[in-house]
């Protein structure tokens, strides 16, 4: 009886929602919408979302670590658990020593991307905003919603910025660990035509990394946003709930992938061709 009741209620919600509260077609727009200007700099809704993420993360960790105790309270415990899990993952990939060096960067990638993605699923993101009235050529009036917040990673600027940081950090740590010449030797060498060609491939792959990093993250999150919009358009109530769960999963996975790939690239870049010997040599610089 209970099960049947639940199903009937769900169906009623689906049908009722579709009939009485229809939702408009999602407005799909690739670039982030500009919602204002601050000292001549255009402020987009993905920027506000990025700030919101930064504020949430900062406050969370600020309050969690304000009074550090040997026996942690709930919030401190949560923060410690999060960091410990990420640090353990980092340790297992990069090894204990390097992990400590890379962790602030890769941990920030993870936290920033995941919290951004999850906050993007909050009600209010892409739904609360300014109404912009556009007048068409023939005098018809179109009203457009300019959301105040839009998930930060649905903007290529954000993901590209993260990708650039990741790849630049890889070069930086690579040079620091192996020494300038040794590191550049990976991309440009005159040892032979084969090595020269491999060097070109390596160079291309570094640039490709930026693109793959940024577009993978952007594509996943943006597609998730569109998927949710379309689902809500098709069946306003109930049906989009499972997709919310899916997007939570995708959001975490993308953060995980970004962190892991960066970590792997960092580890590879700081490990010399000749293994231990060259690493030792690099350290001497």
């Amino acid at each position, binding site marked *: 009886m209970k099960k049947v009741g639940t199903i009937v209620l769900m169906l009623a919600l689906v049908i009722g929602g579709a009939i009485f509260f229809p939702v408009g077609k999602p407005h799909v727009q*690739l*670039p*982030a919408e500009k919602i204002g200007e601050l000292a001549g*700099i*255009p402020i*987009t809704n*993905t*920027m506000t979302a*990025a*700030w919101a*993420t*930064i504020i949430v*993360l*900062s406050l969370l*960790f*600020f309050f*969690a*670590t304000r009074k*550090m105790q*040997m026996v*942690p309270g709930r919030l401190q415990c949560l*923060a*410690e658990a999060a*960091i*410990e899990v990420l*640090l353990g993952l980092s340790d297992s990939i990069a090894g204990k020593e390097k992990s*400590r060096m890379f*962790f*602030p*960067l890769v*941990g*920030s990638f993870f*936290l*920033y991307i995941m919290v951004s993605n999850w906050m993007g699923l909050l009600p209010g993101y892409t739904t609360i905003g300014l109404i912009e009235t556009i007048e068409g050529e023939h005098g018809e009036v179109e009203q457009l919603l300019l959301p105040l917040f839009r998930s*930060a990673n649905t*903007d*290529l*600027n*954000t993901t*590209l*910025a*993260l990708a*650039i*940081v990741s790849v630049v950090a890889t070069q930086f740590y690579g040079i620091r660990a192996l020494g300038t010449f040794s590191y550049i030797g990976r991309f440009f060498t005159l040892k032979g035509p084969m090595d020269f060609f491999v060097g070109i491939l390596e160079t291309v792959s570094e640039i490709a990394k930026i693109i793959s990093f940024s577009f993978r993250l952007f594509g996943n999150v943006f597609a998730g946003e569109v998927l949710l919009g379309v689902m809500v358009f098709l069946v306003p109530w109930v049906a989009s709930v499972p997709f919310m769960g899916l997007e939570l999963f995708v959001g975490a996975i993308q953060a995980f992938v970004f962190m892991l790939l960066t970590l792997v690239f960092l580890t590879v870049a700081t490990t010399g061709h000749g293994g231990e010997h060259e690493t030792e040599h690099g350290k001497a610089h």
Partner: protein
Amino acid sequence: MDALGINGTGLLAQLINFALLLIILRAVAYKPIMNMLDQRAAKIRESVENAERIKQQLASAQQEYAAQIEQSRKESQAIIAQANQIADRIHQEAQESARREAEDFLAKAQGQIEREKRQAMAELRREVGDLAILAASKIVARSLDDEAQYRLIEETLRDSEKFSNN
């Protein structure tokens, strides 16, 4: 690039955002938490080591304790054995002295008995002699001079002594 929404200011802004986040998180998250994790790990390691040490100490203390008990057991056994020995000796001595005393007493008693016996015997002999003389004088009825009488009595007595000695 424009169609994708990529522009210089946006990119720069996001770079700055991320750098800012990195700096903030480093200050409020990674440093304090990693410090705390390290501290806690150190403390746990220390505690475990302490526990191990205490366990070892306990084990050695127990060993020592057992050794001491063993030692004192041995000592007490030695003391008991010694005491037993002493008791034995005292016992033996007491027995010895008692025996000696008894022997002395016995000897003395025997001596007295002997003396009394001899005295009695002497008395008896005299009486028997008298009696014999009386009897003999009556039997013989003739007078022997006293000297001859005594010689006869002596002889008789000697014979009787021989008998009694046998």
